[in-house]
């Protein structure tokens, strides 16, 4: 039996001294469109960031293809949330997509003809080949999101992690993005998406995980998105975890 594509084993994450994710145990075995759903503040983005080593974990491990991230970074692509970028930065759309190839190039090597061709192809796949020379500040919201998706495609990864790729994006761009993601899944890649909208989640994802600081339920979309599970996630027993977090923080200050 081959190793699972992505596995979270007993992952706990604390910001400062207060835990925000408790003992997450999640295994994804085969390529699919996997949704991570939950209310605001449930720790969904934190889960992705913990997987990528962008936030430290207080406990537990995350493995890709059965190995730690460091062994297989090339095979993991990441599309972060859009707000973190400076739109006045002097780069064009083409420059940003080319950045997806940098990790493969390594230190000090410049992108060559092969990389530029790959970048053009990725831009075509998301429908942005016309604006390759435009500075990124001059794009619409949907176009900006597609640029970052193209950058991830240029990474030619086997597992893609996307953080709210459809937030604040117009309907047409949403369709385009979803088609690209579905094509990735069909070509045998795992696509994990943190998603905010329950209604579209039911239509788009093969499997989902409901997160509210701990894992509430996971499995095929139809079986997981039941009224009972949704109640537990969205109006569930979060007060105790809040109190617990405060207790831990307080105890750590005054032993």
């Amino acid at each position, binding site marked *: 039996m081959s190793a699972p594509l992505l596995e979270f084993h007993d992952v706990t994450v604390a910001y400062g001294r207060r835990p925000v994710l408790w003992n997450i145990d999640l295994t994804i075995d085969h390529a699919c469109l996997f949704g991570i759903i939950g209310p605001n503040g449930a720790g969904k983005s934190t889960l992705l960031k913990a997987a990528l080593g*962008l936030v430290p974990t207080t406990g537990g491990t995350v493995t890709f293809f059965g190995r730690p991230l460091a062994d297989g970074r090339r095979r993991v692509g990441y599309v972060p949330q859009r707000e973190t970028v400076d739109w006045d930065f*002097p*780069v064009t759309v083409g420059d940003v997509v080319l950045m997806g190839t940098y990790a493969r190039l390594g230190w000090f090597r*410049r992108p060559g003809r092969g990389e530029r061709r790959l970048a053009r192809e990725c831009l075509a796949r998301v429908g942005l080949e016309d604006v390759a020379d435009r500075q990124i500040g001059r794009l619409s919201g949907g176009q900006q999101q597609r640029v970052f998706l193209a950058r991830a495609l240029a990474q030619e990864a086997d597992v893609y992690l996307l953080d709210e790729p459809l937030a604040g994006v117009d309907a047409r761009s949403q369709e385009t993005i979803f088609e690209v993601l579905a094509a990735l899944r069909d070509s045998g890649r795992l696509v994990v998406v943190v998603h905010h909208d329950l209604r579209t989640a039911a239509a788009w994802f093969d499997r989902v995980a409901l997160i509210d600081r701990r894992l509430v339920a996971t499995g095929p979309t139809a079986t997981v998105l039941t009224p009972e599970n949704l109640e537990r996630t969205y109006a569930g027993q979060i007060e105790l975890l809040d109190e617990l977090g405060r207790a831990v923080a307080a105890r750590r200050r005054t032993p």
Partner: protein
Amino acid sequence: MMSGIPDVVCCVATAPAWLAVPPNTVVVAAGVAAVGVAAGVIGSLAVLRKRALAGDAAAHAALAGVALAFLATGRRDLPVLLGGGLLAALAALGVLVLLRRYTRTRDDAATAIVLSVSFGCGIALVAGLTSRGVPDAAGLEHFLLGHTAALTVADAALLATVSAAAVVVAVVGLKEATLVAFDPGFAAASGWPVAAIDYCLVGLVAAMVIVGLPAAGAVLVTALVVIPPVAARQWTDRVPTMLLLAGLIGLAAAVFGVAASALVPRLATGPLVVLAAATLLAVSLLAAPERGLLPRAWRRRSARRGAA
């Protein structure tokens, strides 16, 4: 020279006199010009990474380092003093990192603390040396506002070498620096050591600030690192072009400062360099084709006239 009329005006009035410039000045000018280029290039990377004022902390701390180097070795050669300045600058930047990680003090306050306290140490050291009548100590004051008139050919060669090395490093690592400046989260997720690259950048800024001390002085060398890149940004939307233009603007400003300082040794170089750079910035803000205020107003007026 009539009293009350500043020296600068008199210099300009006797313009033809300065065409017969001694060769020493030319060599010094070349060295300082190299500093201007490198400050523009490195400064561009720092401005893009939003670390424009890290150089300020480095520069102020460098004064203490220069004084300590003089105290420790008793020598006034430029390499020794600048070496001391570099060590102090790196120490100050290290302290800044520690303050950010281990205390509640916010970034801007931490920078201001490191900058002012280390500068105070420098002032206390230099004043202490001067009041004890230590010979040559008064020369350290020139590091406050810049004084290129006292540079030797060997000094200029040192400045030019360090500047050239810094530019080479910046060009070689341009891809990594741009990636980290644009999207550090993505860079970290892709496996790049973002913190290490940041330290390298800040170290380069410190080095540039140190070699800029003789040209512009501790107080104003940050301007040399900040103003040319901002001016260059107005003319282009690509990073490599921005670096090139920033280098050229820095060059122009530095050369102007040296020339004016050679003509009127009483005036410190620093303010002259900064004002030259600021003028070029004002021109850029007003006249740059895409982003300039005047071309935009013109385009708006043409559009309105066209629509009418």
